[in-house]
């Protein structure tokens, strides 16, 4: 059995003391940023990337992955205890989680969140181990047209799943693709839009853009909303769910995991959408639907399992196809490239220790989170009460040092400041930055594959429709786009995003 030998390689790679340590550091930092409001995983992964370059590839990816799913755990803690989502993907958890706290059931809510997340994480690890290898094998046969179509699908999905206006999301995609063009054209060597600036010759670094738009831009947006709210922390009493609680959380966890795994694979889906979708589905199908919003345990179990499943499932397209489905995955791909690993279907065969090591480390990381988080809850609570006016200058310090050390260049700091302003403006205009960043990273690859496909077909664009796999992918993309435009589904989509 290939899976078992693969998992054995994975355990071998992940269980070295060195990698265990970095897994632990990763989930610890992840929980930390999940707890701290106003600091998202994309900005954190971007900030820590320069520090991870000193590590071997396996350790660095294990750590970065740990940050990502650790953040999903941490985000729920503050949602439940202080009604303050540390992470966008745990916004819905506040609805019932905080209500449970007010009823003196904060401990149970936290335990439910932890159990739901751990279960989802475990299932997702198995799903990745089962589905990634066959997917990678199929992908090995992909040519330029298939890759181009796949990226089209990726961008379409990120548009469909973005919140707000479709047209604006498409605009952000095209904007991202255009930003991706800046730099030296690989085919002709022509400098495009560099204006003789030598720092632009290699293109705009996406870490810089991510830090600017998700780090700096968010800070300005948060400062604008800054209020003098007093945060009241709920008391934690018993952690143990009752028999009734156990009975009520099983089905929502199963449904949340299934939904999260599915949505996580889709580009642009990930943890955020998974948690929203799981909550609204659960509200409809649950026998206790009427109790939602008043402290229903299902309202914690479903979104918490879904966001963790979604976070982890988004590794599938990243590891097997080399295609990012979210800004964080894009950063992970960037980390791989800098570490000298070419992302794509060949990672599994060429670097089995890396591929399986990362997968196995996710399960180990989830175990760490389950064991460590509940006893450390006191520390996390104190951290989430750190006032924002002390927190954001520290974030700026880390962003500044991080972006400078990417290539020891002041230019990157200026660029980050510029993208910070852009992030703020787009935030005010309700234009989502995530599809833009995704497009910026996919842009150069897309252009390359498009040119190659056109050369292959002697300029005949029907090549994308005459190759069955490519056609199939494009049909899925078209169906998704048309579906998003249909009035009925459109209303549903808006409703799903409105459940705040």
């Amino acid at each position, binding site marked *: 059995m290939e899976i078992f030998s693969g998992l054995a390689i994975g355990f071998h790679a992940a269980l070295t003391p060195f990698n265990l340590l970095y897994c632990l550091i990763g989930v610890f930092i992840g929980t930390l940023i999940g707890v701290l409001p106003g600091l998202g995983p994309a900005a954190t992964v971007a900030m820590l990337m320069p520090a991870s370059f000193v590590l071997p590839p396996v350790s660095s990816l294990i750590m970065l992955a740990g940050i990502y799913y650790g953040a999903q755990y941490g985000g729920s803690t503050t949602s439940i205890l202080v009604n303050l989502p540390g992470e966008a993907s745990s916004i819905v958890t506040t609805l019932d989680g905080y209500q449970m706290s007010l009823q003196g059931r904060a401990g149970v809510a936290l335990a439910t969140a932890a159990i739901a997340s751990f279960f989802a994480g475990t299932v997702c690890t198995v799903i990745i181990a089962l589905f990634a290898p066959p997917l990678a094998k199929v992908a090995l046969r992909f040519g330029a047209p298939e890759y181009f179509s796949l990226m089209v699908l990726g961008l379409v999905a990120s548009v469909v799943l973005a919140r707000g206006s479709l047209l604006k999301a498409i*605009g952000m995609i095209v904007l991202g693709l255009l930003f991706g063009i800046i730099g030296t054209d690989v*085919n002709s060597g022509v400098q495009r839009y560099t204006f003789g600036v030598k720092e632009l010759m290699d293109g705009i670094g996406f870490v810089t853009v991510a830090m600017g738009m998700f780090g700096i831009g968010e800070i300005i947006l948060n400062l604008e909303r*800054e209020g003098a709210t007093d945060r009241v922390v709920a008391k934690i009493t018993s952690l143990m769910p009752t028999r009734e609680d156990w009975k009520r959380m099983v089905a929502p966890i199963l449904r949340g995991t299934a939904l999260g795994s599915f949505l996580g694979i889709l580009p642009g889906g990930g943890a955020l959408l998974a948690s929203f979708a799981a909550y609204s589905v659960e509200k409809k199908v649950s026998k206790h639907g009427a109790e939602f919003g008043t402290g229903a345990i299902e309202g914690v179990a479903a979104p918490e399992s879904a966001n963790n499943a979604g976070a982890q499932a988004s590794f599938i397209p990243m590891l097997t196809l080399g295609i990012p489905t979210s800004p964080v995955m894009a950063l992970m791909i960037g980390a791989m490239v800098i570490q000298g690993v070419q992302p794509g279907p060949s990672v599994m065969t060429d670097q089995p220790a890396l591929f399986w090591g990362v997968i196995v480390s996710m399960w180990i990381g989830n175990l760490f989170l389950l064991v460590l988080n509940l006893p450390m809850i006191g520390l996390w609570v104190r951290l989430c009460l750190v006032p924002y*006016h002390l927190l954001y*200058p*520290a974030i*700026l310090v880390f962003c500044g040092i991080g972006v400078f050390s990417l290539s020891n260049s002041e230019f990157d700091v200026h660029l980050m400041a510029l993208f910070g302003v852009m992030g703020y403006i787009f935030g005010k205009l309700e234009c989502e930055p995530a599809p833009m960043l995704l497009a910026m990273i996919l842009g150069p690859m897309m252009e390359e594959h498009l040119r190659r496909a056109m050369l292959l077909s002697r*300029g005949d664009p029907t090549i994308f429709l005459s190759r069955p796999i490519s056609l199939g992918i494009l049909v899925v993309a078209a169906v998704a786009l048309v579906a998003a435009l249909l009035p009925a589904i459109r209303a549903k989509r808006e409703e799903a995003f409105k459940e705040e």
Partner: protein
Amino acid sequence: MTDWKAIGESKDFWSGVIFLGVGVAFVGLGRHYPMGTTMRMGPGYFPMVLGGLLASIGFILMVRALLRPGPGVGRLAYNKVALVTLSNVLFALLLRRLGLAAALILLVVVSAYASKRFRWPVALTLAVGLAVGSSIIFVWLLGLPIPIRGTWLGG
């Protein structure tokens, strides 16, 4: 009656203006790059198509906003944008000249000033703490090649 005030504040309208402007700029600045043919695409092909597409999206957004302006942008926090941006730019300009420690103190104090809960003693303590901590972690422990004391301070 067209409600010009609502249009002038419309989020959709201004998104459209930005998209149109950037699209036109990319087409204009890239017009000399060789287009090539569909079979052998030159470096100008992709930017021209995308620039045109972005400009069209921007145009549609603007027209749509003229008919139905939608929600307005609201007040912009110019001073906060300016302070946060200034803190970053100062940091970049002075990093090598003043060194990491002094540049960080400036970065923290200037950016902290953007908060309405700003207090001098708190900000200065935070600044010194972060400067000392970062110097230890990033320069001494991680060995980043950044001078702690810059050229202006005789470093």
